């Protein structure tokens, strides 16, 4: 294929436009009004960047390339279309892991090519630094270093994200914890860094490095991603996924530098920074420091010292609960991930609409980490058709709880547990919670007597003003609707 000589300039120009569109798109995505168009802008930039890449000079293996793109796109498209909204966090983890793996693989190809060229020169010619430098192509010391760092980060993000995906998908519901785990992980990490550094040092000096070193570096980096993620509990997974998202961004930026590709550098770096901030915001909302998430032993130990909870669980049936809310002045609905799992959000919204028709003031109270990620619950409620103005953030609604007649908790547990304020020995002590316990009456819809995601007993359920409505979320919500309707009949 002969291409006009100005083609690389056009490609660079398109990359530049793509980078602008990514930033513009992300900016638009930061407001609900423009969010949807934001992803379309970014998508347009992406499509343009991918298409012009075919026209770069010296591109071979087009058959393989198009085949791999088609297969990858079709599979992901179908999977992405089909998964339920509740499974979004793990889908983000999965796709993010793929990006990290791709970045690591790019690094692998570049390093292999570099080494092959170097080996060729050192075996055929006497020592000639100049010739070696030419053979090594564009990889100087900085590029080489960033190639290794990018591979390390990308590989960790790859396997780590896959483990996170498996955990959230429920394929791996146990945490794997063993003594000295931290030190074993540290040893794996150091071993990976040492292997990489040895190969890197050789490469910078112009000697070819042993293939064994490179392979060991890759294997150790991949294993480290697994080892690092295994001991982290499911409740902390969103923070970890967000962190790996930032990791992949960084890996992409570094490999972009190796390939001298501006679009990759800018897009990767923007994501790296944005992901880092998002990770901090999430960790803060859950009252966990990042170090705590990664190296802490959440839920392990401390259990014995927790305060005993006095009181009994008091059940209520759906009709009584419906009547109670029908004659209330103000009702707050506190949804949690359990509601989404039970697919109860549509029924709950139907119930809320009936209450509103009766003149009850209904609000939805959302904890920052309700669902499995900040904002996840808002997406799920939006799916059911709940308008924005009925949804209140924790900080806005907390002072109002003493004036609320009935708080209906559905599928939420840890985020309404008053223990977080009262019991210093509790693992969730200090976590910001919704002050549901201060409402005049509390109704909790719950499937059984199990504990929350964090495995901690909930004092709210035993409070004097709390009634338990047992049942599957969707069925219970349906009964509430029926209860209201019979009231009017």
């Amino acid at each position, binding site marked *: 294929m002969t291409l006009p000589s100005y083609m690389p300039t056009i490609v660079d120009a398109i*990359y530049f436009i*793509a980078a602008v569109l990514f*930033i513009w798109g*992300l*900016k638009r*995505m*930061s407001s609900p009004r423009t969010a*949807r168009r*934001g992803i379309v802008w970014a998508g347009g930039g992406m499509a343009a960047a*991918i298409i012009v890449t*075919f026209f*770069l000079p010296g591109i*071979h293996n087009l058959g393989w*390339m198009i*085949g*791999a*793109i088609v*297969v*990858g*796109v079709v599979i*992901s*498209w179908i999977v992405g279309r089909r998964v339920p909204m509740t499974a*979004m*966090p793990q889908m*983000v983890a*999965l*796709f993010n892991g*793929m*990006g990290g793996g*791709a*970045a690591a*693989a790019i690094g692998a*190809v570049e390093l*292999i*090519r570099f080494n092959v060229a170097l080996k060729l020169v050192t075996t055929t010619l006497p020592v000639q630094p100049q010739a070696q430098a030419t053979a090594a192509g564009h990889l100087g010391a*900085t590029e080489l270093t960033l190639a290794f760092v990018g591979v390390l980060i990308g590989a960790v993000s790859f396997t780590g994200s896959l483990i996170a995906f498996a955990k959230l998908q429920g394929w791996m519901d146990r945490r794997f914890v063993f003594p000295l785990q931290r030190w074993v992980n540290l040893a794996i990490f150091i071993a990976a860094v040492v292997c990489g550094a040895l190969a890197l040092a050789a490469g910078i000096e112009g000697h070819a490095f042993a293939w064994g070193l490179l392979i060991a570096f890759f294997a150790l980096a991949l294993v480290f991603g697994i080892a690092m993620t295994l001991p982290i509990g499911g409740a902390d997974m969103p923070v970890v996924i967000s962190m790996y998202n930032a990791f*992949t*961004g960084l890996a*992409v930026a570094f*490999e972009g530098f190796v390939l*001298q*590709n501006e*679009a*990759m*550098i*800018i*897009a990767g*770096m923007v994501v790296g*920074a*944005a*992901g880092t*901030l*998002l990770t901090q915001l999430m960790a803060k909302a859950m009252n966990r420091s990042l170090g705590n998430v990664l190296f802490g032993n959440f839920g392990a130990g401390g259990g014995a010292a927790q305060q005993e909870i006095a009181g009994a669980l008091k059940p209520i049936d759906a009709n009584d609960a419906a009547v109670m809310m029908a004659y209330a002045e103000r009702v707050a609905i506190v949804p949690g991930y359990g509601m989404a799992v039970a697919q109860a959000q549509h029924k709950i919204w139907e119930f809320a609409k009936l209450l509103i028709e009766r003149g009850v003031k209904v609000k939805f109270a959302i904890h920052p980490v309700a669902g499995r*990620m900040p904002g*996840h619950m808002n*997406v799920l409620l939006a799916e059911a*058709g709940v*308008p*924005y103005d009925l949804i209140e*953030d924790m900080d806005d609604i907390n002072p109002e709880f003493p004036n609320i007649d009935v708080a209906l908790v559905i599928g939420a547990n840890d985020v309404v547990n008053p223990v977080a304020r009262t019991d210093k020995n509790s693992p969730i002590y200090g976590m910001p919670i919704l002050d549901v316990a201060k409402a005049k009456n509390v109704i909790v819809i719950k499937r059984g007597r199990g504990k929350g995601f964090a495995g901690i007993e909930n004092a709210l359920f035993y409070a004097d003003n709390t009634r338990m409505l047992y049942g599957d979320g969707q069925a219970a919500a349906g009964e509430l609707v029926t209860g209201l309707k019979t009231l009017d009949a």
Partner: protein
Amino acid sequence: MITGFLALYIFMLAAFTGYEIISRVPVILHTPLMSGSNFVHGIVLVGAMVALGHARTSIEIAIGVVAVLLAAGNVAGGYVVTERMLEMFKTSKSEKSANK
């Protein structure tokens, strides 16, 4: 050619941009935005194509194909998932205006 301090400037400015974009986002958009940024680093596909496009030996081609495959999955999956989430915000808004 991007070298040394020029690269550092690009890294710094891009990082600052990313930080600024996120810092003004309401909590309700955190999940879609994380998904959106996940889509944006799908630009790795371009790099994977370049790596595969220049691959000569069969091992390079094999790894290059894996890179393109994974990156293509990142792009397509990231887009679909983000779009689906954001679409819901649209329907809720139009329904709201229909109610009023």
